[in-house]
């Protein structure tokens, strides 16, 4: 069964939401989804850019109340 893992990186200055996502994806199984919550607007561009380079899959990116939720599926 695929799982969804949530990383709450709101307010994370260092290492930052994308580094947190990379760390979480390493621990996940293929097919799992990682949801990153971020208060940094840059995440909305950073994560899809990295996901495209590596070949994972973007599931969604949603603006919420003062933060963003970005969901990625581990594809390999």
């Amino acid at each position, binding site marked *: 069964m695929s799982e969804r893992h949530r*990383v*709450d*990186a709101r*307010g*994370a*200055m*260092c*290492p*930052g*939401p*994308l*580094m*947190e996502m*990379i*760390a979480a994806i*390493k*621990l996940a199984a293929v097919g799992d989804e990682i949801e990153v919550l971020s208060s940094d607007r840059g995440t909305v561009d*950073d994560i899809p*850019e*990295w996901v495209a*380079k*590596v070949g994972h899959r973007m599931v969604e990116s949603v603006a919420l109340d003062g933060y963003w939720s970005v969901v990625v599926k581990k594809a390999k």
Partner: protein
Amino acid sequence: MSKRVLIVGGGMGGTIVANGLARHLGDELRRGEVAITMLGDTDQHFYQPGLLYVPFGRMRESELSREQRQVLNRRVTFHVDPAKHIDVEKNQVTTDSGKTHGYDYLVLATGSRVMPQNIPGMVEGAHWFYELAAARKLRQALDTFQGGTIVVNVNAPHKCPVAPIEVTLMLHDHFRAKGMGEKVRLIYTYPIGRLHGLEPVANWVKPEYDRLGIAYETFFNTSKVDPAGKTISSEEGVDLSYDLLITIPPHQGAQVIDDSGLGKGGWVPTHPRTLHREGSTNVFVVGDTTNIPISKAGSTAHFEADTLIDNLVSLIVDGRMTRTYDGKVYCFLETGMKTGTYIWFDYETPPSPSPPTQMVHWLKLAYNRMYWLSARGLL
């Protein structure tokens, strides 16, 4: 009934908590109303930040460790008997020797460790300096290096966010001082699209690297190392050739955390302000092993420990918490062999590195010696 505080892990965070509690609760300890016990896995206390200097022969190994018993307040009971299973439902911890320790309050301070074995070929093909034996080996490799390409490869997650930049700038100065500046090409790789997780640090370091001729490759997450072909490859599809590979391996938390079901990868879900383990009211987490999305650094462990000491003391004495952790991190940053700068930030304030000075470099060297006072809670 006396209140029992059990601390698992005797590194930076655990030791500062133990000594701070012992100092503030001296009377209660004397009267037998409180007992503080620490479980460690070694009788030595090791000063990890000193490892940065070992490859360059700039810190003696004897300066890096002391007997843990000497660093700890004498009222803290210390067992070299690693935790094997932590049961937060039953409020007890079982050790390797088969003993069981009950607690009223538990502090998890088991740190993080390097996992080069998680990347194919890394153990065989790479050097690192995050452990003593490896740092020694790297020193030999640097001593005999005749020139060529050195790749400094950074993997996520890792502790001490600035050490990769420091070692790169120190390597640059080291070889220039040896008259080998022209013969050595440095390439720095980083997992995300800039040179450091902290944007202001990334913005500061990029022109520095450009000025010094240090090359870089961003969006580089290591997929494998080929020790025979001397290449390192990334998940993003880039291959780099190297003559010497220095890596900051990916990290995980302690095995006991994973084995006890307290957090995948050894990272314990932790409330970023109260430092409670999520789901517990009497289990606290300090240092590298939290999953709080901030730098894994000694200063983080120290500031968290200060918060925890105040809260545990008032929980024991008054039955209430007094304050929360504000996310403060403070790091010295060596910008070569002669200069340094520093950064600080918290949950609300981003860092802004100031121009490097010789004074800050000396301060960092002085802190390396004064650490032992800090661990004892005197600084």
